[in-house]
């Protein structure tokens, strides 16, 4: 009952504070956001310790893929030790510290590599998706083709014989600004309604899955 009451109480306060600027409601959002950040900061230990325990068990039992668990443990300990003991204490994030060197020269390139893979995944997904299997897929293919061509200089060069305002880039803008935007807005209206309905179910205690319980 206590978690349900807390959910209802805090949810209602958040709704009220949107309409009531008077104190104490005006400061509620900032205060509760700070509390959430503090809780999340402490909760990170739950996850980190769980990760270490699971990885250590994987190594000790020589489960499938255990070398990756070794890498996880080693990386975690390396960054933690460098950050805590060899990087100037609370100023560990300052430029020039060993922790900063690891961040800039190891973590950032790895993260950028993962992000860069998206380019290839977009190409492979597009290759599969843009096939004229049926009417809707053909329409998608045509729209995608026009927008892609309209976004590069060669699109306008191909249609240079047309007057200004009627070239491929203008057509691409038209497709993005009118049918695409209309479709996106329709989805967002549905999403907004879904959020209101879900939030109301949470506040009223009808939806309890996040507490591990059934309605």
């Amino acid at each position, binding site marked *: 009952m206590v978690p349900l009451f807390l959910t209802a109480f805090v949810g209602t306060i958040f709704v009220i504070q949107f*309409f009531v600027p008077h104190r104490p409601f005006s400061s509620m959002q900032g205060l509760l956001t700070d509390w959430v950040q503090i809780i999340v900061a402490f909760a990170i230990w739950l996850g980190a310790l769980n990760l270490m325990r*699971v990885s250590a068990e994987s190594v000790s039992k020589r489960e499938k893929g255990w070398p990756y668990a070794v890498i996880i443990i080693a990386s975690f300990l390396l960054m933690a030790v460098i950050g805590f003991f060899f990087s100037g204490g609370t100023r560990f994030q300052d430029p020039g510290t060993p922790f900063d060197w690891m961040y800039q020269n190891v973590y950032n390139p790895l*993260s950028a590599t993962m992000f860069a893979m998206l380019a290839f995944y977009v190409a492979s*997904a597009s290759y599969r998706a843009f096939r004229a299997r049926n009417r809707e897929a053909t329409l998608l293919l045509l729209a995608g083709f026009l927008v892609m061509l309209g976004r590069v200089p060669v699109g306008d060069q191909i249609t240079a014989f047309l007057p200004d305002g009627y070239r491929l880039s203008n057509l691409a803008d038209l497709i993005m600004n009118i049918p695409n935007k209309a479709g996106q807005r329709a*989805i967002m209206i549905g999403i907004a309604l879904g959020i*209101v309905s879900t939030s109301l179910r949470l506040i009223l205690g009808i939806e309890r899955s996040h507490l591990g319980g059934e309605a």
Partner: protein
Amino acid sequence: MRRALLLALVLMLARAGLPGARATAPPESPSLLPPTSAVAVDTPNDAGRSLVVRWVLSPSDREQDVAFAGYEILRAESPEGPFVAVGDTPARTNEFVDNRELRDGAQYYYQVVARRGEALAPSVIVGPVIPAAQWFHTGRVNTLIAVLVLSGLIIYFIEHARRGRPIFLRKIAGLDAVDEAVGRATEMGRKILFIPGIQDMDSVQTLAGIAILGRVARTTSTYGATLEVPVSRSLVMVAARETVKESYMATGHPDSYHDDMVYYLTDDQFGYAAALEGIMVREKPATIFLQGHFFAESLILAENGNAIGAIQIAGTAEPSQLPFFVATCDYTLIGEEFFVAGAYLSREPRQLGSLKGQDLGKAIILALLLVGIVVQTTGVFDFASLFLVQ
């Protein structure tokens, strides 16, 4: 006498040639004029922490006068002063919002000073004005009406459903496929991967994803399939464990549950994506659920799942990621379908009732859209302005 007159004439002629000896007075340099009609009012719809000062521009404030520096705003707690500067504005602006350390219930007086170089031209002192907090934000009446109408509809239909009246639901292919997907994994002897997104429990999409996890866990428990839930946030790990544990207990298989079914990987977006990629490639799950709040990593995950031949059911309310899921997954819950999934799978009457209210809200919005198109196109009235939220 003649000599005196001649001398006077010579002196007059000489003086005419001297510098400064002009026939007419030189033109005066333009003087700096103060701003006028200064007023100070309480900022509306706030918590009583700011005041607004407005004035009519100084006649000296012209675009051609590049030396005109702007205005300085002075404040005091009595008309006799002392006045201190609380801010300044550039030329051709006539409003200043003062939110610097205002005290509750205190009276304030203002003076607006035009500046050009060292020259100053102050306005008359205006005041007193007292900052006050308002109990209702008048710019959000339209939002309040919308919330009350929508909430009222949802609550009405929840009560309506509680009385046992049947509610029609259209089929959602992605949700009807859950049983099939779990059955496929069971037959193949491979695991089911459930990915609840990369945001924390403060995201409503994560909560919706956890609700779906509860229903999926019931199905995996019933079928005896292996469920794995790698998460990106510690609090999500805790909530997901409770949900899965409760589902396994509810279906009578508490021994099949163990805490390591739900485990934490990393908070980092691409670190999480990399770890999941590795899990997918090495362990080749037969079924992958991507239900939650995703960003750029969505395509990495979905495309990898497609590459290993898994059946994928995705759902998110992030409009920018929906096209990636639609292109790569077998089933995608789009927008509000994602939020109704928990209710749809549970078939619990009160939850289904809320869907009915949601649908009616959508019908009202559709009607307003049609009215708005006609009214706005004919120019009768600025219908769109009714929906602006401050």
